[in-house]
């Protein structure tokens, strides 16, 4: 029997809505009526002041969220350490430190750049710090593609498990709106419709080989990823058939598939929410689906979830939820 890939835990931190905060030079009326929602970073700020640690905002949240993810999955740090666990992040903008170091150099000259700051100025810094902290030795990468970044990361993780390159993979989707990314997000959204929001978030999924999860005592009916593939906007009928075949695995051809697709950029939700999560969107949609009582109420068991980018590329995943009550 084919060994499936399951989602054994999901976590998310999503910024709550609110007025546009004061960042950069143009914080108010110039940007119209849209909102940019920031995560609460006060815990990180306290940590930074107390320990002057090696963490950045993103790496700090990521490491803490892995702890939550493991707790939810019933795993320990010792169980996930080693070469059979992979880690991958996906983000449209990546880490703001990569850009901020340029500003720092302009302001302070070469003496303003030290080894620690430079090491932090790489998009893979958060996943690498986390891999070191948790002893993860499998594949570890940072995707910085478009609004599909989180789903691209999930595609890689799925590849690795099905190719037997690892047994588990932690998939992270995030957006970090620290300066100068925050200013850019605001600038891009000037043409957005009233009520539109762009939201900072971090979301995490734990993908596992089903046999490995069952062997450690996890439930045997956790949500299963039945397939995942790439596509493009405006795809023709033949492409739609290929995508369906790819993401439904061994499903009956007549089985009803419910669709939750990010219609515009990283927008998330079933159409009622006008919030853009950029690269975290598609993965966040999965996390929400799996944590939502709606899954059971709707009695729709097989879901197609995807993300489409402004440039026209897309990633689609099929997820089968076998429990009638909410999945995770």
């Amino acid at each position, binding site marked *: 029997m084919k060994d499936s890939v399951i989602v054994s835990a999901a976590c998310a931190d999503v910024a709550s809505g609110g007025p546009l905060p004061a960042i950069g030079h143009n914080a108010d009326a110039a940007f119209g009526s849209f909102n940019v929602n920031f995560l609460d970073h006060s815990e990180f700020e306290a940590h930074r002041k107390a320990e002057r640690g090696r963490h950045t905002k993103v790496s700090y949240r990521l490491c803490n969220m892995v702890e939550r993810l493991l707790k939810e999955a019933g795993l320990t740090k010792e169980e996930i350490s080693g070469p059979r666990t992979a880690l991958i992040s996906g983000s449209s903008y990546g880490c703001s430190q990569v850009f901020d*170091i340029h500003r720092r150099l302009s302001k302070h000259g070469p003496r303003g750049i030290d080894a620690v700051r430079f090491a932090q100025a790489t998009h893979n810094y958060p996943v690498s710090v986390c891999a070191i902290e948790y002893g993860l030795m499998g594949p570890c990468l940072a995707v910085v593609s478009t609004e599909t970044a989180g789903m691209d990361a999930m595609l890689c993780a799925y590849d690795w498990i099905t190719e037997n390159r690892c047994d588990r993979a932690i998939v992270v989707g995030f957006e970090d709106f620290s300066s100068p990314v925050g200013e850019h997000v605001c600038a891009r959204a000037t043409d957005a419709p009233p009520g539109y929001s762009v939201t900072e978030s971090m979301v995490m999924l734990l993908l596992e080989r089903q046999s490995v999860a069952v062997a450690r005592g996890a439930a045997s009916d956790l949500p299963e990823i039945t397939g995942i593939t790439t596509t493009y906007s405006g795809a023709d009928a033949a492409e739609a058939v290929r995508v369906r075949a790819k993401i439904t695995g061994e499903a009956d051809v007549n089985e009803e598939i419910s669709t939750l697709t990010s219609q515009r950029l990283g927008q998330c939700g079933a159409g009622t929410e006008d919030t853009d999560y950029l690269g975290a969107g598609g993965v966040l949609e999965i996390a929400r689906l799996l944590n939502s009582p709606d899954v059971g109420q709707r009695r729709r068991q097989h879901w197609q979830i995807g993300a489409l980018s402004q440039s026209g590329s897309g990633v689609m995943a099929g997820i089968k939820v076998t429990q009638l009550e909410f999945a995770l």
Partner: protein
Amino acid sequence: MTRSVIVTGMGVVTRDVIGIPEFSQLLADGSAAPGRPSQFDSGRFRAKNAFATDPEVAQTALRKALLRMSKDMGLGDMTEADMNCAGYGMLAALEAVEQAGLTSQILKSAGCSIATTSGGLMDGYTDALNEGDHSAQFQELVSPGSAAVVLRRILGLQGPLCSFSCACASSIGAVSYAFMRVQNGDAPVMLVGGNDRIREADFAGFNALRAMDRNSCRPFDVDRSGMIIGDGAAILVIEDEEHARARGARPLARMASVALSTDSHHITCPQPGGLVRAMEQALEFANMKPEAVGYVNCHGTGTQINDEAEAVALEAVFGGSQKRPIISSTKGITGHLLGSAGAIEAIATILALRAGEAPKMTSTINPEDIAFTLPVEGEDRTIRTTVAMSNSLGFGGLNGSLLFELPATGEF
């Protein structure tokens, strides 16, 4: 169904050369000494030299290539911003596409996977912000994945699109994604590689780390004292073998496997164990024994810790072989292209395999006493098998290993 993946096209842009024939010659002859980059004042840093590509030279060559190919290929228009963001990558891509003989129809089904260090035009945007300029011209092509988006738009690609930024292992990440897309049937053709422009912040950072040599990069030299930053682009066309066979394409090499691992040890200090696992997994997935490998293109930055860790890892994997591979690093010739390093070194590896000879390490004068042949002056550089490996390491303890194999004579 798992598909066999082959390389059918390659393109390169570096400080010294634009184009594969010139790159082959550069690998045989060695390069001129690194010099001051024109993009910023390097005089204020401890180490001042780089292998920095002249943007004007590359842009002139790109305009010529676009003029020559646009009509037949139905290419989109390239703006000034597109060129600043992805000019090197586009120039390399056009060469690779031409060599592979891809038509505009095939390009529609193709995807791209691009590696970068920082990517995009965010530095320009940040400068503008500092000067109080919030104008729209700085708002596009800012995110790190922008180069891939430009390639997609100009070349009319409709297949998978992805960008990776994992320090100096970025290219291996991009290759692993592209390899999987072809192998799993998501796309018959992928353009994969790296696109990087030299950046003052990276120059400053490696200076701060004291990882840069003041004069030259001397990998595996007793007197080595660091790397020299380079920039440019390298793009490969990889393709489903059946697809290539059906259209009569010429295979340059078979991409036998890709493997990734993490040290889980230190952000900037590599540990051999991680690279050992990557190399072993690459061999395992290709169903090959270490003896099959005739040449290893090492990451070989010329820093003390990198080359030392790599030598230990190579000994662990190939130490028991009857015939050890020749090992070398091409960073003494091209400089360290950071995010694009793995891509240009993959091309150097394929060229070496096809020539049957390892690139000469012209900058390594006093080779370290290791149990592998280094192709320095006076050494036999003959590659004895049809298989070669290319390794990349990156900040954070990231490792990647690629295996290439020459197609058998008459196979196509």
